[in-house]
C-alpha cells in the first residue's frame, strides 16, 4: 500500500507539470496586454520597464520555469515564513497579480475560507442527507418513498445550480423574505445573534449546492446497496437469524459504502467547479468569484494559479479515492 501510494505520488508530478504547461501555453495565446490601462503619456521605454517588472518580456520557457519556481519553491517558503516566523523567502519574487500588483497567493488565502465554508458545509449536509435516503430507497425498492426519491434526484440532476439558485432567491428572499439573497462575507460572528445571521445567509447557497450533490450521491448509494442486497452473504446473515437491522445497517451498509466513499472523495474537486456558479449567483466572494473576475480582467498569473490549484485538487482527490478504496476493500491489491 505504501509503495503504491508513493508510486502514485511520484506519477502525479509529471501529470501536474504537464497540466500546468497546458494551462500556461493556453494563456500564452491570450490577446490582452497588462499595459493597456497605462496612460498613453507614459513613454514606451518606461512601459517596457514596467513589463519587465511584471516578469514579461522574456521567452516562454524561461517564464514558465520562473512560474514553476515561484509556485513550488517561493510560495511554500512564504507559507513557512508566516507560520514559523523564519525568513526563507526574503528577497524572492512571488507570483504577482496584474490586477492588484500584490502576490496572488495572499489574495487566494483571503478568499479560500468563504469558499470552504459554503462548499464544505454543503458537502457535509449533502452526504448526511444522501446516505440515509439512498439506503432506505434501496431497502424498500419501488416503494413510494423510492419512486419519489428517484424523481427528486432526477429533478436535482436536471436543475442546474444557476437556475435552482435563482429560483431559491425568488422564492425565499423575494417572495417570503426569509433569507438574504447576497452572502455578506464581511460579516463577523462574535455572539449568538450574529451567528444566526451567518446561519441565515448560508442556508440558500448551501441548499442549492447540497441539492446537486445529494442527487448524485443518493443515486449512487441506492445502486450500491441494491447490488449488495442481492448477494449470497445477505441471505446467509438472515438465515443465521440476525435481525434485519443488523443485516442492513452492518453487513450490507459496510460493503456498499466502499464505492460510495470513493465517489464522495472524487466529488470534492468537482464541487469547487460547481461552486463557481453558486458563488456567482449568491455573490460569495470565494475563489470561484475570484477566478471569474480575474478572467474578465485578463489577470493571467491569477488565472494560471487558480486553474492550477483546481487541477491539483482533482489529482489529489483522485489519489485519495484510490487509496481509500484500497484500504476499505481488502480484495483490492495494488501490487
Amino acid at each position: 500500500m505504501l509503495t503504491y501510494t508513493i508510486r502514485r505520488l511520484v506519477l502525479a508530478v509529471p501529470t501536474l507539470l504537464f497540466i500546468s504547461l497546458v494551462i500556461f501555453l493556453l494563456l500564452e495565446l491570450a490577446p490582452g496586454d497588462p499595459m493597456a490601462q497605462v496612460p498613453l503619456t507614459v513613454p514606451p521605454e518606461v512601459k517596457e520597464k514596467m513589463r519587465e517588472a511584471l516578469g514579461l518580456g522574456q521567452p516562454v520557457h524561461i517564464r514558465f520555469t520562473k512560474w514553476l519556481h515561484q509556485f513550488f519553491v517561493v510560495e511554500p517558503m512564504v507559507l513557512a515564513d508566516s507560520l514559523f516566523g523564519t525568513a526563507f523567502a526574503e528577497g524572492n519574487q512571488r507570483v504577482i497579480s496584474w490586477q492588484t500588483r500584490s502576490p496572488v497567493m495572499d489574495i487566494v488565502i483571503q478568499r479560500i475560507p468563504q469558499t470552504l465554508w459554503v462548499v464544505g458545509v454543503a458537502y457535509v449536509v449533502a452526504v448526511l442527507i444522501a446516505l440515509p435516503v439512498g439506503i432506505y430507497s434501496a431497502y424498500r425498492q419501488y416503494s413510494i418513498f423510492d419512486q419519489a426519491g428517484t424523481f427528486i434526484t432526477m429533478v436535482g440532476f436536471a436543475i442546474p445550480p444557476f437556475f435552482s439558485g435563482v429560483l431559491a432567491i425568488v422564492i425565499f428572499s423575494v417572495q417570503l423574505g426569509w433569507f438574504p439573497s447576497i452572502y455578506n462575507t464581511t460579516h463577523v460572528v462574535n455572539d449568538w445573534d450574529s451567528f444566526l445571521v451567518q446561519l441565515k445567509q448560508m442556508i440558500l447557497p448551501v441548499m442549492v449546492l447540497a441539492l446537486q450533490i445529494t442527487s448524485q450521491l443518493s443515486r449512487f448509494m441506492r445502486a450500491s446497496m441494491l447490488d449488495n442486497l442481492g448477494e449470497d452473504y445477505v441471505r446467509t446473515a438472515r438465515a443465521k437469524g440476525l435481525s434485519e437491522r443488523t443485516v442492513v445497517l452492518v453487513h450490507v451498509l459496510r460493503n456498499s459504502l466502499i464505492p460510495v466513499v470513493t465517489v464522495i472523495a472524487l466529488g470534492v474537486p468537482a464541487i469547487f467547479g460547481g461552486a463557481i456558479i453558486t458563488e456567482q449567483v449568491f455573490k460569495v466572494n470565494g475563489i470561484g468569484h475570484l477566478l471569474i473576475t480575474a478572467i474578465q480582467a485578463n489577470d493571467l498569473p491569477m488565472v494560471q494559479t487558480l486553474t492550477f490549484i483546481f487541477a491539483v485538487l482533482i489529482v489529489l482527490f483522485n489519489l485519495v479515492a484510490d487509496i481509500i478504496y484500497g484500504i476499505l476493500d481488502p480484495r483490492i491489491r495494488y501490487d
Partner: protein
Amino acid sequence: MTEIREQDAGGKGVAEVGRSQWWDVWRQFRIHRGALVGMMVFALIMLGVLAGPLVYWNDPQFVPTGRDFIKLRDMRPVYVTLWDTGAKVSWAHPLGTDNLGRDILARLLSGGQVSIAVGLTAMLLSLVIGTVVGVLAGYFQRLDGPLMRLTDLFLALPLLPLLLVAVLLFRAPLSAAFGPEGGIFVLIVTLVGITSWMQTARIVRGDVLALKEREFVLAARSIGTSPPKMILRHVLPNVLSPIMVSATLGIATAIITESALSFLGFGFPPDFPTWGKLLFDAVDRMELYPERVVWPGLAISLTVLSVNYIGDGLRDALDPRIRSH
C-alpha cells in the same frame, strides 16, 4: 411479468413479423414509464422549438420604437391577471415582453433552437471523439496505453475554468472567421465536444476489449478480415448500446454547459437569445419579473430531465440481462 407474456402470446403473429433486436429494445423501452414520458416531453419541446416560430406570430428580434416602446415594454404574462387584475397584459404577448418590448415566448422559442442545436452538435462531436478513441484503444493494443493516459489527463483537467479561459481566448478570432453568432457557436460546440468525450471513450474501450475475445471476432479474423472492416462490421454495431446511452446523457451535459457559460457571461453575444442567456439577462430584474427567470430555467430543466429519463430507459432496454423476455 405474466401479463406481458400473455400479451406476447396474443400478438405473436405481429411480433414474429417485425422481430429484430431493435423491436425488442423498443418493447422494453415502452415498459419504462419515465422514459416514455421523457421521450414525449422531449419530442414536444423539439416540436415547439422547431415548428413554434413558424406558427407563432411575434418576431423575437422586433424592438418597438416611439410610443409603442412605452406601450409594449415590460408586459406581464397573461396568467398574472389571476391574482393581479391591474397588471399590464395582452393576449398578443402570452408570456409578456421584456424591458425592450421584445416578445418573451418568441425569444424562448428561438433561444431553444440554439440551445438544442448546441446540445445535439456538441454531443455528436464528443461521441465521435469518444468512440474513435475508445475503439482504437480497445482494438489496437499498442495504442491502448497512450490513449488511455490521454483520457486520464483530460479527466484531471479543471474543465469549467479552462472552458471560461478558452472562450475568452478564441472568441475574437472565431467571430472574425464565422461572424459573431456562428463563431461562438463553433467555439462552444468544439469546446464542449472536446471536454466531454472521456466517459464514452472509457466505456467503449472496455466493451471493445471484452468483444475482442469473443468467438465471432476470432472467426472473422480467421477468414482474413482486415482491421478497418472488422471495426466497422463487427465491433461498432456491438458497442452501439453504450454509445447511445452516453449520447443521451451527452445532450444534457452540453445544454447545461452552454447555459452555464451563457449565464457567467461567456456565451453568445448579448442580443442573441439562448436559454442560459435569457436566464442571465433576467436575473437583475427578477424581483419584479420572476417569470423571465422561471421560463428559460424551466425549459432547460425540462429538456435535461426528459433526456436523462430517455437515457435511463435506453440503458435498461439495451441491457439484455434486465430484458424480461
